[in-house]
């Protein structure tokens, strides 16, 4: 790892704005140039550089012993200006999103054969990346709103790339839901500003109290973000949006976009507006998370389309994320590690799964599960990747999903909320049921002779998906890498407010 300790902090922290500027620059370049193949190679190169930046950011955060690094943009300190903040949790989020972005970028190069779609994809894709990095690095409430809007609009535009009726309808519904959620969030921001007069997250964390107006503000912001993260029963828009989008877009939406909105919610609850949170509120959110696991798994079991199955699996997995709320409320030290682990493991597994499924859909021409029996012999790599990703989603060792669930078990026991363990176990069994449904069909021999044209180069684009799937195993075997980084920053992961 590059040693940044020798550089003074002021110089080294300039990588924070650079991390956001790079994808934005590339969005403009990809928009202006004519050739989509140049755009593709330029994108892959930039994604690699972006990943290097993320590695630098992690090493920077670790070298500061987890202290929050701030960068005042323009030299104007808060509350006059906007500052960027970096702690170990956001550093892990950044390296996760950079890795998955690189994998999806490589995959998209192979996926888009239509020139028109490819030319539209690249600039929008880099705008989505800009918004993601902006969310993880932002230190200002209104800046978060603008980033949320950018992420929402670029996500919607990406879904609508292929211009089919189902995609347009799904994109339109997602857009309305996204705008509605953002406005609820902005309403909360307005209430916060009315009460405290500042928008900076660190300053807020120091001055906020649990007044009624702050609780209302937190309620509205939470409602907006929960809608955007698709927690049951506000998940209705997700299956259509994620299933009708092109495969790389589905991967990005499930793996990264949901994590961005969840990150904001999590941070608001446990770093910035903590005095306004209540155990009752956290438990209600956890209860809906449990319902999401049950509902998502049942719908995944009964649906007949592969992409819808994976989308409903996302609905179920999001439920786990929200069970973290009551656990985090009572027992923050361990649960923060569980949160980081679960987010990383799920993101890698889900992205790999969507890429594999997208490949199957492209080659077979459809994604109906019943008609896909025997596909393992035609497309072994896709099924293999699906299999590894499934193991992580089920929470079996030696994957990252297992470590995450293990830590959640531990938190639930330590904080004497053992009832969540039931849902963790049941969730694992249910996910096994619907994932095995796919794997089972994939290995049986077809009863009717099905002609499937699969060229030899069909699975080249899946190499990056394979790497992602392998990563879920690697982080399962080396739990200490992520957990140590989180522990370093644990005391200051609350943005300096302390709890």
């Amino acid at each position: 790892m590059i040693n940044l300790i020798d550089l003074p902090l002021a110089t080294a922290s300039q990588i924070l704005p650079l991390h956001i500027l790079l994808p934005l620059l590339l969005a403009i370049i990809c928009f202006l140039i004519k050739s989509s193949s140049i755009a593709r190679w330029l994108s892959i190169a930039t994604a690699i550089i972006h990943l290097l930046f993320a590695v630098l950011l992690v090493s920077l955060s670790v070298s500061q012993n987890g202290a929050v690094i701030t960068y005042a943009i323009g030299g104007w300190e808060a509350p006059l200006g906007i500052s960027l903040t970096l702690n170990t949790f956001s550093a892990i989020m950044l390296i996760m999103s950079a890795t998955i972005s690189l994998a999806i970028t490589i995959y998209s190069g192979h996926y888009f054969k239509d020139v028109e779609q490819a030319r539209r994809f690249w600039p929008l894709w880099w705008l989505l990346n800009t918004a993601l990095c902006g969310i993880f690095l932002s230190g200002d409430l209104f800046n978060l709103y603008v980033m949320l809007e950018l992420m929402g609009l670029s996500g919607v535009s990406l879904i609508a790339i292929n211009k089919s009726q189902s995609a347009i309808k799904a994109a339109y519904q997602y857009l309305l839901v996204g705008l509605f959620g953002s406005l609820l969030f902005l309403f909360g921001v307005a209430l916060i500003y009315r009460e405290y007069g500042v928008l900076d997250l660190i300053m807020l964390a120091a001055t906020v109290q649990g007044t009624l107006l702050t609780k209302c503000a937190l309620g509205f912001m939470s409602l907006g973000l929960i809608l955007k993260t698709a927690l049951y029963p506000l998940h209705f828009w997700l299956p259509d949006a994620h299933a009708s989008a092109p495969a790389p877009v589905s991967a990005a939406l499930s793996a990264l976009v949901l994590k961005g909105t969840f990150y904001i919610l999590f941070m608001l609850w446990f770093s910035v507006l903590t005095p306004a949170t209540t155990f009752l509120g956290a438990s209600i959110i956890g209860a809906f998370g449990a319902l999401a696991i049950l509902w998502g798994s049942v719908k995944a079991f009964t649906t007949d389309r592969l992409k819808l199955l994976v989308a409903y699996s996302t609905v179920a997995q999001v439920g786990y994320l929200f069970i973290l709320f009551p656990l985090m409320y009572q027992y923050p030290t361990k649960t923060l590690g569980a949160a980081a682990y679960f987010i990383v493991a799920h993101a890698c597994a889900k992205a790999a799964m969507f890429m594999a499924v997208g490949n199957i859909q492209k080659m077979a021409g459809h994604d109906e599960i019943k008609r896909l029996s025997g596909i393992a012999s035609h497309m072994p790599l896709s099924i293999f990747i699906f299999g590894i990703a499934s193991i992580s989603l089920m929470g079996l060792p030696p994957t990252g999903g297992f470590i995450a669930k293990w830590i959640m078990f531990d938190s639930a026991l330590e904080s004497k909320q053992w009832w969540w363990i039931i849902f963790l176990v049941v969730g694992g069994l249910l996910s096994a049921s619907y994932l095995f449904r796919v794997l089972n069909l994939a290995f049986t021999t077809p009863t009717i002779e099905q002609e499937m044209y699969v060229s030899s180069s069909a699975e080249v684009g899946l190499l990056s998906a394979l790497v992602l799937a392998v990563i879920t195993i690697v982080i399962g075997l080396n739990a200490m890498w992520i957990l140590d980084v989180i522990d370093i920053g644990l005391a200051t992961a609350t943005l300096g407010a302390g709890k």
Partner: protein
Amino acid sequence: MIDAHGATVLKSSYVLLIALTISVLTGGVIFALLQTPAPQNIMYDLVQANIQQSGVTNPVTAVLLNFRAYDTFLEFAVFFCVSIASLPYLDPSVSDASHLETKDGPLFSLVKVLVPLTILLAGYTLWVGSFKPGGAFQAGALLAGCGLLLTLSNAGVTKMTGFWWRSIFSMSLIFFILVIGFSYLNTHTFLMYPTTLSGSLILFIEFAATFSVAATLYLCYLSVRGRVVQGSHRAG
């Protein structure tokens, strides 16, 4: 439940329930609002203290384009995203008649007078933003209005997918990045303008933003209009 026109409408009991719940929530928020003490005006004093260095005298422009220029930068990115999404096609091989149709008639004669005046007004609005309310967005909206007038009198642009049009859409971001680069060479901080040049740099950014905003708004109008016109031709 289907109403008389065949469209589905929510059951009135659901409507009542929603209205009731939201009224209760609203009452709660208003109650909480009225209990909160009046806020203190920190920001006005802070801005006044630093406004000499910002290069403009209008405090709102100073906040938007200097102190919190990052938000404005991202706002330009949002507009850029909308322009990418609204462009009908990007592939240059798709040919389309790209010409300015002109027609004579009373509307067009009026437009011949209005458009140059509006452009002048837009330029003034852009320039006056440094000391009075005004600025890039207002000027851009005026220019987009010119475009609307031209389209309504059959003299508008029909194709905005060429390279130069695409540069106009991304002009605000490009100029902003140029300013960021130039400032960085002088001050070694992201988005910190050199003090003597702040005013000119802000005007530079706003100048580019005017054209981007105008082009994007005009494009949005054209894309919606095109489909609505198509739809009515199909239905009619």
